[in-house]
């Protein structure tokens, strides 16, 4: 099977004296559903940040979607990010934009036509049960609703990989289930590679998944 992410001797750190991930080796198959777990401060979010190029490897190699992220140029990084769907723990919605425009963002960046964009946004709003909130601003929504908007934005452009950082943390059961269903749907129907950083793997998972655990700077597959 094709590998969509390959890490070799990967070391990650915010400063040189404080290595968070130390010479890790792992690979992720295209179209797989992967959970990354670990204790708080183990480096789960740090690893996810490195996957979308917000943190560059200090050592080793990290290839995501065919792009080597060590010393990557801005142009190549932008190219890679256009093919990623990211769900952030703190949602990262643009406050001065409506829900509709926030979901549109990756479509605008990827140069979709206006008619396609509007249809896709309408359909996604229905999927996340927020069609009646389209004209509202993020701060007018609850945390669960904001996370659903972030989820819709991550799915909008049918990305190759979805990276989700604690997508259901602090959410109610309804919103959590909706998000898991969407992630499973994207994986099953579109073959999207899903990488989720979380504390707990939901028991209701219907798709086959892989589980990686981070401990003491090392990443190991849990079988």
């Amino acid at each position, binding site marked *: 099977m094709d590998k969509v992410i390959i890490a070799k001797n990967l070391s990650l750190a915010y400063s040189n004296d404080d290595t968070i991930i130390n010479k890790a080796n792992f690979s992720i198959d295209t179209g797989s559903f992967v959970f990354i777990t670990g204790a708080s401060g183990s480096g789960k979010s740090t690893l996810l940040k490195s996957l979308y190029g*917000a943190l560059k490897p200090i050592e080793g190699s990290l290839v995501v979607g065919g792009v080597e992220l060590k010393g990557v140029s801005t142009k190549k990084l932008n*190219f890679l*990010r256009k*093919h990623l769907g990211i769900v952030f723990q703190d949602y990262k919605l643009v406050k001065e*934009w409506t829900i509709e425009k926030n979901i549109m*963002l990756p479509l*605008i*960046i990827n140069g979709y036509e206006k008619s396609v964009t509007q249809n896709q946004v309408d359909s996604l709003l229905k999927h996340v049960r927020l069609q009646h909130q389209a004209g509202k601003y993020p701060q007018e929504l609850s945390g669960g609703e904001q996370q659903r908007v972030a989820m819709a934005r991550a799915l909008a452009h049918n990305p190759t990989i979805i990276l989700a950082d604690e997508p259901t943390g602090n959410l109610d059961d309804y919103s959590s289930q909706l998000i898991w269903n969407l992630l499973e749907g994207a994986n099953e129907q579109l073959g999207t590679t899903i990488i989720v950083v979380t504390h707990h793997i939901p028991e209701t998972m219907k798709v086959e998944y892989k589980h990686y655990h981070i401990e003491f700077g090392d990443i190991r597959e849990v079988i």
Partner: protein
Amino acid sequence: MKSFRNHLSLIIALVSILFSIQIFNIVDRSINAYKEKLTKNYSLVIVSQNKLLPKELKAQVPNIADVIELSPEHVIKKLNTKISKNNMELLKATLPRFYKLKLSKYPSPQEIEKIRKQLLKIKSITKVESFSATHDTIYNLLLLFKTVISVLAFAILIVTVLLIFKELRIWQFKHNERMSIMSLFGAPTWLRSAVLFRLAIVDALIASAITFVMFSYIASSSWVHEQLQTIGIEIVVFDKVDDFLSALAISVLLSIFLAAFIVLGHKEEV
């Protein structure tokens, strides 16, 4: 409301800069017009033993616009009753020739001194009267006025530039988050900064329009025209095409510089 206030502070800063530039232009035009007026009334008087040709004088001093020979008749007429006709003819023949020299532009005291020296190089010229005392006073007064206005305009410029830099910090803070989010989704620099440039250009257009309205009103004010008439000059207070285009260019360039500074200073959040 908050966003409107942010816009307003940049617009005010831009209007202040355009206002000080235009005021400087008006003062400069007024001084130049006044200098022109003084040039018309100002002349040097030279005394020569022989007849001088304008060509000869202009060759020595290119700044000369006109040469008028002064007739000694009115001086001689005063002596007419006491001197015989023969002696009168003799006197006429021996009297030196007087010339009034008009200059093409109002000279500085240094230029007058230079002209005086150049004229005295012509052997037949025995005296050059430049009326320097009066001239120097007026010239220094104009110079002082222009300097004061220049310093004032410069001070306004410095204050407004500082104001713009403060505004720049606010904008940087305000737009940083949106630009970071867009960057995380792979937006190229031009796309994530497009909103910023659009806002900057809109503010520049508004500032230029305000300046246009303000100076169009000042230019049509009868009070301003009365003041100009009092000092005997006529100037274009505000050229609706040239001055407006200059103001527009300055404000747009400044705003683009401001936006570019924010874009270049943008750092992605980790």
